[in-house]
């Protein structure tokens, strides 16, 4: 049976669901029996989820305008070259 150390080593693959079925099954059992590993799994899962769910901030208007203006210039140059 896997130890807590084994579980920790496989945690990322466990979260990404990229383990072979028998290893997965053994780790499932370990998590059911080990409250500490359950907490580590739960809080790591929440850590990833909270980062994924955080919407990116808006780009400041002056920054976007500066970029679009530089691009328009480049696009126009390309148009005249082709």
């Amino acid at each position, binding site marked *: 049976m896997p130890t807590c150390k084994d579980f*920790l*080593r496989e*945690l*990322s*693959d466990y*979260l*990404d669901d990229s383990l072979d079925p028998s290893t997965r099954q053994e780790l499932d059992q370990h998590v059911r029996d080990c*409250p*500490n590993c*359950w*907490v*580590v799994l*739960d*809080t*790591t899962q*929440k*850590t*990833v989820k*909270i*980062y*994924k*769910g*955080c*919407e*990116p*901030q*808006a*780009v*400041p208007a002056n*920054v*976007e305008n*500066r*970029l*679009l203006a*530089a*691009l*328009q210039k*480049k*696009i*126009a140059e*390309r*148009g005249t070259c*082709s």
Partner: protein
Amino acid sequence: MEYMTSTEPRREPLSDEQLVENAKQGDPDAFPQLVKKYSRRILRVGRNITNNDEDAEDVLQETFMKAYSHIDSFQGNSKFYTWLVRIAMNEALMKLRKRKGDKVVSLDEQLDTGEDTVTREIAVWEGNPEDRYSQEELRELLDKTITSLPESFRTVFVLRDIEELSTEETAEALNLSIPAVKSRLLRARLQLREKLTRVFKRKGEDAFAYL
């Protein structure tokens, strides 16, 4: 002209592949649409890596300018966003290196003690952080936490877990082996978990109620 003109009714937004193709064909509206679609995410990559607003804004500008200049070399072997985020990561790392060169000591240069997969904080979180903090407070906290990670972990976490590239795409973008990506991702996730648990954990008598 082969590209779709703006006078034609558009039932649904064009795909990235179509916009890239139109940009290659000379449609002046195509590439700015890609900018509008992805600028927030590219700015976020810049911020997460450089931890500096001015540098992040430069990363945004340089990424799209470079992408447009090289649009003809984009063959569509990868997704457009994957290609774009690789350019952004390179730009951000160059900024970081340049800034580090100006400093004698860097916060990023932490020694690898091999203890970063040790879990010290074992406690459940108090409720749902999204309900307890405003978007702005949460973002500030998450930004601060991620920028405290060593660069080698941060880059992998940003590409894999925030920008959602595959392990293979991340390995290619950072010129790493797949086992190296996996090992760094695990350590990044565990370090972030450790740091966030210190903030979000349930305190007092209920802290170990799961036992």
